[in-house]
């Protein structure tokens, strides 16, 4: 097979993954929508009704993950480099990391209820990637040819996946908090975890990836030093990476040392996560500076 065959395979992988995630989305929607219907007693549920639908969603997400993993690998094979050279590639790899983080959290913390927002987020990311951001597979400009690219970008992408997952959970927290304040959760949300465990889970995820994000920023600085002769230049991308770092540090401090819990902490987490997204979307596409490799 030659490089364009691999590029085609990679595209098919992305399409297949999208189809699988779409099925997962429907399955999780059914799971959520029909799980507690027609029950007189709201505190006792019969999940067996929709358990299979939820399981189907999980299986589809795992298959989607595998398909996307192959797509990312083939993209790399076709371009003869790591597949992180432009926005399209960052997006599919980011979606992969996000799915991976979800599967990990599912296995470790039993948070299947998150399937619906996760499936929506991945579909949106992949949809944008393949329609708006798509660029053909090509080799890298010399400044990107470095082992630090692999290290820095993989750390950043994994961190991003987990940050987004933490944001999903913090967002869920805020929505449920709102409902509870107004008199109680709606039926579909009754089986979601308690507010405290959502709060705690958000913190765990952030504490888990904060060192990795710190490492990603440092690896980026080392690479910048090797390629451009300075390890830090306040280029927009670097500046926003720093802002994200500071925002998450503030989140950790707010929780650990000032004792913020719940609503305030969740908002701070959402804020920190949005600085990451801003960096990804705004700075890559409209920003200027040495990091603008979006290929658009």
């Amino acid at each position, binding site marked *: 097979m030659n490089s364009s065959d691999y590029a085609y395979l990679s595209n098919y992988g992305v399409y297949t993954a999208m189809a699988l995630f779409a099925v997962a989305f429907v399955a999780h929607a059914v799971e959520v929508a029909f799980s507690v219907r027609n029950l007189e007693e709201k505190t006792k549920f019969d999940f067996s009704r929709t358990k299979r639908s939820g399981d189907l969603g999980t299986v589809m997400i795992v298959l989607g993950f595998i398909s996307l993993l192959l797509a990312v690998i083939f993209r790399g094979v076709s371009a003869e480099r790591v597949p992180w050279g432009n926005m399209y590639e960052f997006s599919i790899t980011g979606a992969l990391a996000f799915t991976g983080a979800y599967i990990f959290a599912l296995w470790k913390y039993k948070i299947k209820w998150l399937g619906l927002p996760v499936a929506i987020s991945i579909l949106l990311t992949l949809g944008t990637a393949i329609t708006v951001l798509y660029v053909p597979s*090509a*080799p*890298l*400009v*010399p*400044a990107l*040819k*470095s082992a*630090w690219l692999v290290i820095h970008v993989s750390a950043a992408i994994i961190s991003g996946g987990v940050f987004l997952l933490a944001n999903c959970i913090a967002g869920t927290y805020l929505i449920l908090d709102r409902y509870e304040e107004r008199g109680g959760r709606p039926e579909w949300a009754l089986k979601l975890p308690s507010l405290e465990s959502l709060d*705690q889970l958000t913190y765990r995820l952030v*504490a*888990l990836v*904060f*060192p990795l994000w*710190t*490492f990603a920023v*440092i690896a980026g*600085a*080392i*690479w910048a*030093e*090797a*390629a*451009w*002769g*300075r*390890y*830090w*230049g*306040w*280029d*927009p991308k670097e*500046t*926003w990476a*720093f*802002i994200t770092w*500071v*925002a998450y*540090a*503030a989140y950790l*401090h*707010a929780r*650990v*040392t*000032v004792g913020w819990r719940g609503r305030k902490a969740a908002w701070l987490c959402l804020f920190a996560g949005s*600085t990451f997204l801003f960096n990804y979307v705004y*700075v890559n596409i409209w*920003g*200027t*500076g040495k990091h603008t490799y979006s290929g658009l």
Partner: protein
Amino acid sequence: MTTNTELDARSSIRWLWRQLTSMRTALILLLLLGVAAIPGSLFPQRTQNPLAVSDYFKSNPGTAKFLDQLQIFDVYSSPWFSAIYILLFVSLIGCVLPRTFEHLKGIRAIPSLTPKNLNRMEFHTEVVEGTLDGAEAWLRKNRFRIRRDAHSISAEKGFMRETGNLLFHLSLILVLVGVALGSLYGMKGDAIINVGERFINTPTSYDVISFGKLQSEKSLNPFSITATNFKATYDLVTGAPSDFKLNANVANEIGTTEKSQVVRVNSPLTFGSTKVYLQANGYSPLVTVRDKTGEIKYQGAVIFLPQDGNLTSIGAIKVPDMQPQIGFIGSFTPTYERGEGGGAISSYPEVLDPRLLLSIWTGDLGLDSGNPQSVYRLNTSEMKRIGLKTLKLNETHDFGDGSITFEGWTPWVNLQIVSDPGKIYALLGSILAILGLLMSLFTRSRRIWIKENQSKSGVEVAGLAKNAAPGLENEIASLVIKMKG
């Protein structure tokens, strides 16, 4: 009276210090630092893109002047930005140093007394068959720090959490020290050299050079670099570069033996704390200019600056030794193609079909006026244009007062030379910071107490996990099982 005001002054300073080193202030400063970094990413910065700044001044003069007073175009070196991070780090030092001493003292200390009421703790159980000895054996095996009193045991684990936390914050200070050293004692400059030429590291060899506030010209390393060969590889379809490679003969001190080395974009040359980076490349056309009698008045490689990705390049050739003086505004296209407007552009960055386009000027070059002039531009205010010509390789053009021959070309490279003695500290600080973070975030810190039951037989067991770290319940359960067994 005096002593009173002195006291007041002292106590208000102490009050200020306490405020500054409080956690809440640190948190606010931390957030503020993030917010303060934003404008620098939205407005062009002088240090990165001076052209964009002057464009901004041209298009919005009023706003630009106002913004400039707020140092919006120099955010990261502005007093207000510096003020925030200096305050943050004073706060950091004020909080972390006392805690470090406290912690060091705590290495030897034994855990504090067992509290009276254990049933208020998070985890609390009563074990009928348990004994203190059984508990102690289990705790020792699991490496708890233990305080054994007559009727109770107080144990704790997770000392590394605070150690890591302090290491992390102290390392941040080290990073900042590294950054400061770099800006005070660093140096940075650019030099363009033609392949075949030698660069000697003295201030006059540079096109641009700047020194840190406490650094001077004398500190330049005595090294020399002779560019022997340069190879750029481009993608045949898109023309995008795929590799740049410079071969150079390098000597640490002029006169010492030269070593042959390769410089690439991601692999600079190193001379102590000075590094030499390959930053850009272009072409210098080789020309010979003769006067009417055929005598050579100028001969050499003239550096032209690239204007696009296909290296369409422009430059100026100045011949002050002719009467009257002659100058050329030139455009070099490595692979010639007629552009849409009829002008010449390059369609590929390698030299496949080169052309040298010249506009020829006569008059006063203005070199003696005392004003410094760009070597890449011709000042035509005192000159008159006498011709236009496109030359192929080895072609000669006679312009009346003399002739010019396009003899060939040589590539040039832009070397960026940077010295940053602080970066090793910044790197060291970063590595320690990550280690500290990992220690702090992944160490579970917890306490366990065991107390003999006064009224009944057996013991009471209780535990407390710092920061609601998970797993204590299981730990206590296995302790209880061990005591029973």
